[in-house]
């Protein structure tokens, strides 16, 4: 595939799926303007570096990864800004919640209270209906990590999910069982 064709199909992919990317960005940054910024940055980065893209098949995951990375980068910057601001303005205290930095609790009531990497897995798997393999590609981790994160995320979301554990186990196979065993061992 020529570079020109690759570039064109990347552009096509971005234009066709822009709503999906915006939703993903908004899901993380929870702010309309910021989400637009994130998507714009992601497009710029992708188009600048399209030559690094190996094949058209890898494109969807590659671009999604850029969107997610941009969102997380935005959150990190935001966190810094808030932290700095808090030092001289107490009013802002509690106005921002960064799940990744929350104290660890076993049971959380909301997805947004999960650590970021778990949120990503939940978002991609349940909302975007991506397969675990796709999630592994997007997050640039291996399949087993995705499985264990998903399992751990479900577990953290409360006891009521326990009923579903068995279902998950059968769905995602032995490695998840292994992950479960490991987490039990850890506990």
């Amino acid at each position, binding site marked *: 595939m020529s570079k020109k064709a690759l570039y064109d199909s990347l552009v096509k992919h971005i234009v066709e799926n822009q709503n999906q990317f*915006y939703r993903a960005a908004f*899901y993380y940054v929870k702010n309309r303007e910021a989400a637009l910024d994130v998507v714009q940055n992601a497009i710029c980065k992708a*188009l600048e570096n399209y030559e690094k893209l190996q094949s058209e098949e890898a494109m969807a995951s590659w671009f999604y990864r850029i969107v997610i990375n941009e969102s997380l980068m935005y959150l990190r910057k935001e966190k810094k800004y808030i932290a700095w601001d808090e030092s001289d303005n107490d009013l802002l205290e509690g106005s921002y919640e960064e799940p990744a930095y929350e104290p660890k609790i076993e049971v959380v009531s909301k997805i947004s209270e999960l650590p970021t990497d778990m949120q990503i897995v939940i978002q991609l798997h349940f909302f975007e209906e991506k397969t675990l393999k796709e999630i592994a590609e997007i997050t640039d981790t291996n399949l087993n990590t995705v499985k264990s994160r998903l399992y751990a995320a479900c577990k953290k979301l409360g006891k*009521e999910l326990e009923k579903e554990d068995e279902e998950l186990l059968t769905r995602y196979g032995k490695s998840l069982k292994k992950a479960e065993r490991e987490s039990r061992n850890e506990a």
Partner: protein
Amino acid sequence: MKHDYFQEEKLKYEEIEIPDELLLMVRQTVAADRRKKTAAWRNRMIKMAGSVAAILLLCLTIGVNSSYAFAETAVKIPVVKTVAKAVIVRSYKADIIALDEQNSKEKEEKPLMGQEADEPEPSVSGNDTVSENEVPEQPVQPETTEEVPGGVEAWKAEMTAEKLREIKEIYTPDMEERYADEPEKLRTILLAELPEKDISLYGYHENGVLTGTALRVKDSCRYFDWNYMNGTKKLPDISFADADGDGEEELVVLLYNGEPQTKTITREDIEAPDKTAAEGSEASEDGNGNISNEAEAETVPARNTAVAENIPEKKNTETAAENTSMSKTAENTTAGKESDIADDGRMKISAQDAAEDGLEETASGDGSDETAAKSDMPSVSGNDVSVSEKPQEAPKQQAGELWLISLKGENWTASVLSINDYESQIIHQLKAEYDETAGAIQLYLMEEPFGKSEKLSEEEKDGLTYEAVNLAPEREFITEKGLFLHFRMEVVFVNANGEEVFFPLSIKLKAEICLEDGSLVVENIKER
């Protein structure tokens, strides 16, 4: 349970509202990136072409100076020989020039052999145009006055405001027929006039040459090495407009030399003007406009020495002073490196040839030699005069070069806006983006959406790839209350064979042309 929980969350996720700006933002971002890439690619190509030209010149310089055989070969190749002769510094220079002279003479003799016995002898002024031999049927020029016909230089020397004033009839192609027996009436043709201001523009028109004009304002006149027409035979326009906003109007001369003027008009062209086409193969107008004054300054003195030896004409020696009196303010910046090199070479060599070869008659045995032979013709230096061998389709009529002449005092100043100038200025400001799914084009002016998105007709867009949006050939300069360019845009697609397919856009546009610091700039693009 879990599913309910996630379904609720999923619903929320799916209900995330998509802002209206998203689509626009995505398009603009993509379009901006595309433009950046196109510009980067263009720069790369220009740099590459520049370095290739520099390397070639270096090789040629080293080659001709280190090997006599190489030099001998180089001076036999048209075009290359002009450069080669300019870069030879070795002592065998005289030999090489003699060799080249010999080549030219050999070539020149060949066509003469085949011609009829009553073929008039080419005149011997050394200023003959290359078309002399292209038009064998053309009757010999009877002497208009006491002058020997001697090309545009002699014409310039000969024509005065009073003589120009005598020409009253505006040129029409049918004059070629009517005055077939009196070619002296066609030697100077009236191209345009503004009787109320007593301003007229005349063209030198002899042996099919369409280069060389005289601008008469009341009793003073100046000469320009302009190509005043192309194959469409549309005459130049003159009008007045205040382009620099100083309250005084400048003279606007519009030349319809839209296609690169690289062809002399032959008898066949005159008989069937529809089939004529100016063929662009050599330097662009940029090059022409850019160097003509310099070239003149350099070549005229040299030529005069030759003329003085051979033709006892007093007037010719005065041409230098007259011709160079015009100062040009606009410097064309788009002229490429390569053309600079070529033009340098040509300029030098034309001076050299005129001085050393003096009487050498121009060789015109074949089309390919024309461009080289023309270096012997100082009057058109920088303007390519060559012959296209096959007839082509009629050129699209375009508003060509625009000259703006400020007539203040004794020293007039002239600025030029070439086609490349205004096209690139407009393309720089007016971008477009093609939405493939909708089949629509959206224009952007300075990054802001401009006009409505225009849907292209559905017909046969299959297999076509969007290429760019360019200026359509339909364009016109308007000089009412300022100076404007009326134009339209067209979408260019490329089909599978790499051929361009055009879809005109219906939006009508206009841009203002202003004179700022001596340069003509296109600004204020609007819908009209």
